[in-house]
């Protein structure tokens, strides 16, 4: 069976890969490109552990075919930090101890970053609904929500100072 040759952009880098038509973008990221930061928790779009940005939209990589990535831009958890500098959301997750086992964390960070790029002043309820597609079984969500709200507050503070 012939594999598909796909050209795409991942975390800013032009990337080519071969995939089977059935393979999802998550399969491709993990198994073909070894970008294993996106996790498979369910493969049905119910846990959010594979959250990535596809053409600037938050999606579950498990619900995108690898072939669909042709000509599009994909951003994964691996592209969130800039060099040595962690993204504000990553920093806040660490400061608030918003992770225990950490397997859901990449998905939460990609999702929370997407929220704060649209809205730097979300209410607690808005944060909770935005993140409702990201399951966490360890933390009870409390510290995650606090981390995101605090990141938003710091973002607003920076904007005011700028």
């Amino acid at each position, binding site marked *: *069976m012939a594999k*598909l040759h796909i050209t795409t952009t991942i975390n800013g880098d032009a990337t080519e890969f071969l995939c*089977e*038509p*059935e393979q*999802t973008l998550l399969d491709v990221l993990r198994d073909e490109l070894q970008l294993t930061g996106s996790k498979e928790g369910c*493969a*049905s*779009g*119910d846990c*959010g552990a594979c*959250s990535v940005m*596809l053409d600037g*939209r*938050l*999606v*579950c990589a*498990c*619900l*995108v*075919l690898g*072939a*669909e990535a*042709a000509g599009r831009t994909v951003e994964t958890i691996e592209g969130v930090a800039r060099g040595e500098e962690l993204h504000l959301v990553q920093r806040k997750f660490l400061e608030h101890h918003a992770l225990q086992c950490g397997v859901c964390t990449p998905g939460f960070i990609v*999702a929370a970053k*997407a*929220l704060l790029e649209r809205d730097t002043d979300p209410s607690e309820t808005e944060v909770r*609904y*935005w*993140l*409702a*597609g*990201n399951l966490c079984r360890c933390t009870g969500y409390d510290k995650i929500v606090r981390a995101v709200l605090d990141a938003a507050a710091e973002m607003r503070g920076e904007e005011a100072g700028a």
Partner: protein
Amino acid sequence: MDYMRFEAPSSVDAAVALLAEGGGGARVLAGGTDLLVQLRSGMVEPSLVVDIKRLPEVREIAAEDGGFRVGAAVSGAELGEHAELKALWPGVVESAELIGSTQIQGRASMGGNLCNASPAADTVPALIAARATCTVAGPRGRREVAVEDICTGPGRTSLAPGEFVVSFHLPARPAHSGDAYLRFIPRTEMDIAVVGVGVSLTLDLQGACTQAEVSLGAVAPTALRVREAAEALVGTRLDDAAMEALARAAAAACRPIDDKRGTVAFRTRVAGVLAQRAARIAADRARSN
């Protein structure tokens, strides 16, 4: 089993040709949020998947005849970001925005939601209540079909081989109109509707209901347009008696099943409750425009 083929045509005609050639083994990929789950679980094993998202027509929202034409693969998130559409048909937009998580919203579409033909699809009752139509493209050209005529049973549609839904038309509506969609799920998010209710209505200047549509989801093999429920509202000022009649009519129309998501008794009972709540929201919206 054979290996699946993937195609992403760039014209509607090419998509139709591919689908016609693929026959029963072909599947349309719109948002993919249902199809990929079915692929993964082995529920479907298509020989061909046709990604329609490269067709400009299926990705656009455009004003048309005082209403809107919405591409079949426009995502829920895009619908929610369209202020004018949301102002005209807030219930339809909220039904699309209720599907799944933020991540699902980035992909799931009204076209996919309709053609997946789940009895519990959220947008379908809202679209039926809105008297929406859809444009179907196929080997014999295009036709305009009422949304309520697409689904014929769980997982079954009236689409002929080679046909697919290109876009929806949400009509213009008179002043003092409003719509709403409500569903019941056990959690606050991430569930499939146990009951869904779409209500659309128009009031006159005195606040009396001049026109109404009520549609129920997840209580029968397909979403239902419940005329008796609409009739319970028309000509009334949506007083308590009308609301009671609405709930009774909605409950009477239910033909649900017991399953992992809810019981017959629960669905029937909650259909009436949600019909009242949705009608109140629709009426509030109608009064404010």
